[in-house]
Structure formats: C-alpha cells, structure tokens
C-alpha cells in the first residue's frame, strides 16, 4: 500500500472536477484578485485553513494575534490601496472579535470582506460549542451578510460579496460559512452572472443638477468647498484641485478628507469641525454657498446642526442617497460618485477667483493665529506633544514614500492639525467609529500593501496598550517598515481633557499606567527608543526612519496638554475654545 501525503494533489480537483467548499472559497478569492488576508484559525474555519495551504503561493495569510487586529489590518490594507481588505476568523469568539473592525469599516466606508467559519448546519441554533449568530450580530454594521450552508452557493456568494463591498459606497460584507459547507464537494460554477435586482450602486449622473450646482457655486460671493472621504475613495483629488484652481474657491477638508487636497496649496484652509482651525469654522459660518463633496456632515463636523453654516445654501454630492438631507437641508443634493460629479462640474465651471473672500478668511486667520497658544509651544523644558508633531512634520517634509496611521484621541487631532497633509490615502485613521487600538494593526496591513514605503503609526499610550500585540505579528511576518510613535502621557488624554474643561477636573477613570514601552518593544524583538527631551525628538525620528526594522518610540510628553481649539460637544462651531478659559 502506498501512502499519499495528505496535502498532495488536494488542490487539483477530484476526478470529477469537484472541489471542497473551502477550496472554492480560496479559488474565488484568487479570482477576486486577493493577494493577502489576515486571520486566526479555529475549529469551524479549519477546513478553509486546510485548503488555504494549497493556495499559499497565490494568497499570503498573515496570522494576527487577535481577530480585532486581523480586521484592522484588513482595513489598513484597504484604506491605503483602495482594494478590498480580507479578514478571516473562526466562529463564536473569533467572529465576535471581528465586530469592532467591521463596525469601524462600516462607519468609514472601507471595503472589507470578513469570512467566518460557522458550526455545521445541523448544529445551527443549538448553542453548539463556539456558535454565535454572527450574521444576526452584524446586520446593522455590514452592507450585507451571508450565512452559507450549501457548497453550491459559495462561488456565487463570494463574487456578489466582493461586488457589494467595493461598489457604490464601499463597506464591509460578512460571509459566514458552515463547516459542512466548507467540507462538502461540488463542481464550482464561475459563470453565474450577478443577480442584484434594482441594485443601488448603479447611478446615473443628473447632469442638470450638476450644472445648476456649478452655477450656484461659481456665482457665489463667499463659496467654500468641503472635501470628505468620498473624494479620496473615488480618486478625485486631481479633479478637486482643478476645480478649486479654476474657480479660485477655497477648500476645507474633513478628517477623512485630509490628503484629498494638498494643505500646502494657497487655496487650502485646513480642517473644520470640533478641532478645526478658528478661521475655517468662521469661514463656514460666513459662507454663502457650501459645497460638500463626499462628506456626510458628521456631528464632529457640524457641531450643533441648527447653527451650522447659517448663511449658506448647501450643495451636497454623495454616492449614498440616504446621506443627502440626513443632517442638513440641502439646496442641491446630487447622488453621484465624487469624481464623476467633479468631472462634470469642470465641463461648465467658469474660470474666476474669490480673492476678496479669500483675503477676508486669511485676515481672520492672521488676526487669530498669533494669539492662539496651541500654535506655539509654551516656554518649558518639558517635552510637549507639539514638539513631537513638529519633528514628525519636519521629517515628513524631508522624506517621501510614507503613510501615516493614527489612532484615536488627542494625538489623532494633533496629527490632523499639526502635520501638513498632501497626498490621498496617506492619512489613515479611525474617524466615524473612533476605535482606539486601530492604528498598529492597520499599519501592519498598510505596510504589507506598500513594502517599499515607511508606515508611521501615531498612537497614544491608551491605544497602544489595546493592540500592541500585533507588533509580534510584524516580527513573525518580517514586516520592517513600521515605525510607531507613542505619544505617552499616562492618561486617556482626550477624556481627561474633557474632564478638565467641562467636568471640574474630576479625572475619573482616565489615569493610566503602563509598561516601559521601549523595553516592551525590545521584548518583542524590535527596537525601542525613549524620548524625554524636546531636543531629542528629531534624532529619534530620523534614526527610526533609517533603521531596517520596526521601531517603537516612547515619547514621554507633558501629561496634561490639551487639544485646542475645541468646540464643546453639541455646541455651535462658532463657539470655539482656544484655551481652557478663552473663546476665539
């Protein structure tokens, strides 16, 4: 009797051309152009992992340390490339650990496929070991999800799922496959056309509305363009720039719009909203036409809605019709891909300038900025967060080929404010969901997508302690191009800041201890640097950049620095605090 090695020839179809469901999933992923996926195996997904081994030359699997890390890594990959990120988990806790990244991808319209194993169909609904109703759980946070129990459905479902994830307004789609469906065999049919009746991703541009919008915008005295995530997602930066330059209309961005328009441009005003600049929020309150392209008027952008842009007629371009009119009443709402709309606007937009308006905004800026403490560091020998951001900004001006992933909290806002952003898909952050712990795994995904670039993480000590285990993944996968700057202030800083400003400095549950971060880095087998003096920041960043491997820099910054300006939650964006005691 001859023994056949267990893996041999498994990839080849059986004599009848049949394959297992698990092999079909792999094959379908290859057909969708997937080159990498992030995951952790477990009982119910084992058939898939068994089959995956045969496809290891076509699809790289990155074993993460926690499913949340796998999900965020898929997001980081997707956000930097524009392609669909793929993450894998087993049933039960594996699947529920993916819930946070799925919710994050949902809020930030990130194309993602989550594949989860499920208990065998016969055991569904019996509270079997590691059974969780993950399709039920993820209904409100996915574009769509599938519970696949029949091997015949797999090829089609994967195809449809990828189409949904990347079409229209992108987002996460979950495919839950029972173990028996992964094990069963069939001859896959790849030629079944998609059958999506009345599908919402398809939209015809209303050219008449675009022409009216262009006329309204260009005819305005004090117009503003607000660029959101949609501009980045649709790859419309060039069109946006062309429109701004031709018409002379100044551009502001949302947090996710950062990078859509170069901030070094004379027409760039910067970010608006809760932590936007004073002159930008003022411009919104004074403008007569506000053109929001690809943004969704998040409450961090609008502040108190009834007081937002009171003099403005609103033009809103969004690919998702349910966003139009959701928050603010629009004069002209256009359901369109941002790039399609901007291209169409360029057909009729006349050349012009808005110098008087721009001068007024710049005068406002000049009047305010010198008095704003947040723009300059106080006279102190202590390492201020501002020193770190100034050093990082200098480094980003010296180097090319980098992307930055930020986490959530004070450092995220400082990074948005104090670093000059220039290119789309280089500022990656968790915006809508505000997921602490996003940055390190997301950087892992970005680093694998762009192995020739340097991926910087900016993270607080709170977020760092949530997902730093993915540094071990970087080491195992030989990822060398991630540099992590920890803005370590020993607090959950943004909450502490709110407690200081609005709750009588009652620091309830915000004081945070932690390990010696540079030693922890060394324990992971990567380089750790500790920086405690302002004069050491530049050198630390430069040496991290030069080092051929991951580096973690522990910046021990002033513990109670604040992010200013700040609009208190729920208040008008006219009401901007520029110090703990003064308004703009």
């Amino acid at each position: 009797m001859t023994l056949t090695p267990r893996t041999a020839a498994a990839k080849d179809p059986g004599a009848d051309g049949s394959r297992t469901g698990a092999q079909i999933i792999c094959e379908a992923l290859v057909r969708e152009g997937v080159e990498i996926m992030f995951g952790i195996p477990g009982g119910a997904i084992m058939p898939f992992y068994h089959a995956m081994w045969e496809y290891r030359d076509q699809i790289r699997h990155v074993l993460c340390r926690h499913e949340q890390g796998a999900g965020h890594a898929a997001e980081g990959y997707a956000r930097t490339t524009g392609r669909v990120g793929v993450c894998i988990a087993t049933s039960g806790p594996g699947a529920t650990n993916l819930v946070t990244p799925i919710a994050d991808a949902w809020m930030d319209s990130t194309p993602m496929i989550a594949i989860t194993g499920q208990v065998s169909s016969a055991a569904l609904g019996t509270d079997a070991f590691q059974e969780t109703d993950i399709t039920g759980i993820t209904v409100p946070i996915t574009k769509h999800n599938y519970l696949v129990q029949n091997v015949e459905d797999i090829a089609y479902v994967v195809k449809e799922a990828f189409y949904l994830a990347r079409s229209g307004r992108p987002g996460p789609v979950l495919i839950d496959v029972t173990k028996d469906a992964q094990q069963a065999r069939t001859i896959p049919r790849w030629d079944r056309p998609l059958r999506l009746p009345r599908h919402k991703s398809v939209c015809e541009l209303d050219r008449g509305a675009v022409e009216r919008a262009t006329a309204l915008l260009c005819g305005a005295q004090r117009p503003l363009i607000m660029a959101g995530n949609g501009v980045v997602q649709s790859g419309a930066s060039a069109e946006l720039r062309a429109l701004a330059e031709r018409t002379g209309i100044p551009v502001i961005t949302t947090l996710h719009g950062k990078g859509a328009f170069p901030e070094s441009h004379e027409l760039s005003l910067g970010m608006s909203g809760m932590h936007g600049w004073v002159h930008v929020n003022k411009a919104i309150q004074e403008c007569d036409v506000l053109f929001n392209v690809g943004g969704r008027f998040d409450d961090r952008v609008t502040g108190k809605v009834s007081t937002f842009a009171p003099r403005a007629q609103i033009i809103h371009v969004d690919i998702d019709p349910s966003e139009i009119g959701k928050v603010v009443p629009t004069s002209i709402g256009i359901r369109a891909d941002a790039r399609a709309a901007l291209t169409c606007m360029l057909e009729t937009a006349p050349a012009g300038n808005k110098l008087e308006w721009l001068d007024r905004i710049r005068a406002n800026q000049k009047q305010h900025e010198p008095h704003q403490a947040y723009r300059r560091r106080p006279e102190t020998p202590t390492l201020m967060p501002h020193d770190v951001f100034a050093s990082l900004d200098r480094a980003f001006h010296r180097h090319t080929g980098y992307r930055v992933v930020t986490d959530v909290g004070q450092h995220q806002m400082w990074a948005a404010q104090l670093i000059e952003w220039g290119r789309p898909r280089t500022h990656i952050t968790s915006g809508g969901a505000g997921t602490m712990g996003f940055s390190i795994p997301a950087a892992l995904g970005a680093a694998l997508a762009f192995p020739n670039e340097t991926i910087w993480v900016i993270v607080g000590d709170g977020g760092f302690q949530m997902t730093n285990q993915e540094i071990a993944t970087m080491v195992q996968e030989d990822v060398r191009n991630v540099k992590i700057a920890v803005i370590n202030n020993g607090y959950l800083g943004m909450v502490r800041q709110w407690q200081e400003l609005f709750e009588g400095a009652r620091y309830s549950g915000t004081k945070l201890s932690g390990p010696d971060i540079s030693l922890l880095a060394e324990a992971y087998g990567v380089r750790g640097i500790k920086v405690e003096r302002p004069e050491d920041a530049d050198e630390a960043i430069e040496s991290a950049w030069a080092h051929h491997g991951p580096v973690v820099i522990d910046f021990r910054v002033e513990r109670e620095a604040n992010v200013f300006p700040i609009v208190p939650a729920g208040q008008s964006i006219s009401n901007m605090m520029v110090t703990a005691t003064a308004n703009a």
Partner: protein
Amino acid sequence: MKTSAGFPRTHTIVALLQDHPGVLHRAVSLLRRRGYNIASLAVGRSETEGVSRMTLVVEQEDVEQVVKQLNRLVEVLQVDDVTHDPTIEREVILVKVAAGGNMQSIVSVALGYGATIADVGMGTMLLELSGSPAKVEEFLQRLSPFGILEATRTGRIAMVRGRATHSAAELMSDLIVAAPIAQSPEQWLSQADGINGTN
C-alpha cells in the same frame, strides 16, 4: 390621527423585498435601532415569485430617513411611504366572543359589519371580518360589551389605487450584471496604482 403640527402620527410604508431568510430582520432592525414602534407589520408573497410585499405601520412623525435607509438594503427592491397616497387599506380580524343567551345580538352585529361566523363553540362564537382599520376597530368596540375572549389581527395591508405602482416583476428584471468578475490580480494592481496616484 394628526399631531398639533399637522403631521400624521403614523406612517404606512409599503416595501417589496426579495424573499430571502433574514430580510425581515434587516428591515425591522433599522426601525428598532431608532426605537420606533411598529404598530403593525404584514408580509407575504407578492404576485411575483421570489418577491414579498410588506406593509409596515410605524408610529412616528418622520420616517423619511428610515425609508431611505431601507432603500439601501441589498434585498429591498422598492420602498414607499404611501401615507399621503390614495390607498385601499385592509385588515383581517378573528375575534372570539362569549356567546351565551345573547347569540342573536352578536349575529346581528356581525351581519351589520359584513363579518362571517367562522365557528360556534360551547358558549363562544368566532367571527371573522375584513375591513378598513377603522371599521375593524369599530367592530371590536361594538363587540366588547359581549365579552371578547380572544382577538387576533393580521395587521394592515395597503395598496395604492389606480395604476400599478409596484410591479415586482418589473423590478426583479431590472438586474445589474455589469460587475467586475474574475479579474486577474494584475488588473487589480494596475487599478490600485491609479487610485494611489501621487500629487
């Protein structure tokens, strides 16, 4: 029912859904998320195979956003708020009343409303009525003095008068097939390069 502002307090929404497991959960989840109460929900197969028609009555002044978000669901073919449209609305009720010596009076009430007597048991009568929600409500009130033992209602179903506004067959044949299928990794990479274009 009107509020002081003149807006109807309840809305009637008619939707066409693909007849898949879980589709009702997705639809209802959007209302639950907002804490909207569903006054009634009736769903069943439509005239077209694979399509269900749902009538939803929601106790809420403004349902525009929820209608838009229902529309976003993959398996939802069409959603309309028909509150202000000319519609025919019907409900079916089964009601069991205590019937002792007053059977004759119950029968005359039933006949007056065009109800049928579905069953007569020991001391009970089971009546069946189809009618407008207002008529059904009135019928129940008229019966209540006899002693209502049990009542069950189907929930409201609604249809807009006149021309066919919701042809399920038409919607189902409005397919998208223009999908990027089975692209090679090379194609994707070149697309990604386009997306990442530098400036």
